[in-house]
């Protein structure tokens, strides 16, 4: 899923404090699971904004709404659409995709982002998420037996570890980040496939990553 975290409160408040009628719009999918922009977080932020406005005697109406997915037009029903149009501004607690999708659907309303979108990640334990995919456009997980050097190696090394691997940890963050190549070698050893690493991997085709410009995917059988 897409993992995000909330922007600092002061940054959010500065961007919305001039609006008298603010709608905070949460998203019920990825950012609900990573506890950054779901119904509960919308409630917390709405209460914080109400308190901050009260502290400076500012009149401000804060409405709360959360939809299933901000990145899908079908979830913008008539209720939420009219709430968006009636608001002075919308503070979106969706990821960067959600924010831009609202802008595309409602081009007359100012939209402010409330989150910093971070990465595609997995839930490692309650309250902790880690990056697992970089969306490079050409998956190499088969070559490395299910551990991605693009996303999990700090330097995206494709042909073995660098010199910064120490006690199985990465030099960039030795406390928290395991060396991806240590993980790959351990897994290959376990599966008795270590000889697979003798094969030299040619340079990766990065044109399918962001380097080839904005991407789009089409299923011709599904388009109307």
């Amino acid at each position: 899923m897409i993992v995000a975290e909330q922007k600092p409160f002061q940054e959010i408040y500065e961007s919305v404090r001039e609006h008298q009628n603010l709608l905070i719009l949460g998203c019920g999918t990825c950012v609900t699971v990573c506890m950054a922009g779901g119904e509960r977080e919308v409630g917390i932020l709405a209460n914080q904004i109400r308190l901050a406005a009260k502290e400076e005697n500012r009149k401000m109406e804060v409405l709360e709404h959360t939809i299933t997915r901000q990145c899908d037009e079908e979830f913008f029903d008539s209720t939420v659409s009219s709430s968006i149009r009636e608001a002075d501004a919308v503070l979106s607690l969706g990821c960067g995709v959600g924010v831009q999708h609202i802008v595309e659907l409602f081009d007359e309303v100012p939209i402010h982002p409330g989150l910093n979108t971070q990465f595609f990640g997995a839930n490692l334990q309650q309250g902790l998420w880690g990056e697992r995919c970089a969306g490079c456009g050409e998956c190499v997980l088969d070559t490395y037996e299910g551990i991605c050097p693009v996303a999990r190696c700090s330097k995206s090394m494709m042909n073995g570890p660098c010199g910064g691997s120490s006690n199985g940890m990465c030099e960039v963050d030795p406390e928290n980040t395991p060396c991806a190549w240590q993980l790959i070698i351990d897994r290959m050893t376990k599966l008795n496939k270590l000889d697979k690493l003798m094969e030299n991997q040619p340079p990766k085709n990065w044109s399918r990553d962001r380097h080839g410009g904005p991407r789009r995917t089409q299923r011709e059988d599904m388009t109307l």
Partner: protein
Amino acid sequence: MEPNIIAFCCHYCAFTAADLAGTMRQQYPANIHIVRLPCTGKVDINMLLRAFVDEADGVMVAGCEVGSCHFLEGNIRAKKRVEYAKRKLEEVGINPEKLEMFHIAASEGPLFAQTARDFTDKIRRMIQQESQIEQGSEGQKKKEQIAEPVDNRKEENDRSTGAM
């Protein structure tokens, strides 16, 4: 005016202690509004912030002593949430000490009454200090407003006499 205080109390300990305090004829301020919860583990950050939005001056969360939660860890989880809510209050400019967590066993009626009295006193002092600061800053503003026209006149005089 007495401060408006909301106390979220666990049914198994602090709420029973509050009841016991009454039975023992212990006095504690009448401005404390008790909300009974099945466990302080039920406390949600939104509950705490909402209390402040709805004009509470202080909020106390009172749960079981560490290690004796009826649901094992509810009070420990509540403590973490209270700490998080304190940070959220601080971000909006509200003194985080207006929210506190206490551990009071069911048998400690006098402790509940004492805690309620102490917390009310603390909140009352904070409100007084805040109003003094507010009055001070308003007084300063008024002084500046009065001083401004004098300065303007001085400038005008300076201009008319050619002094720079």
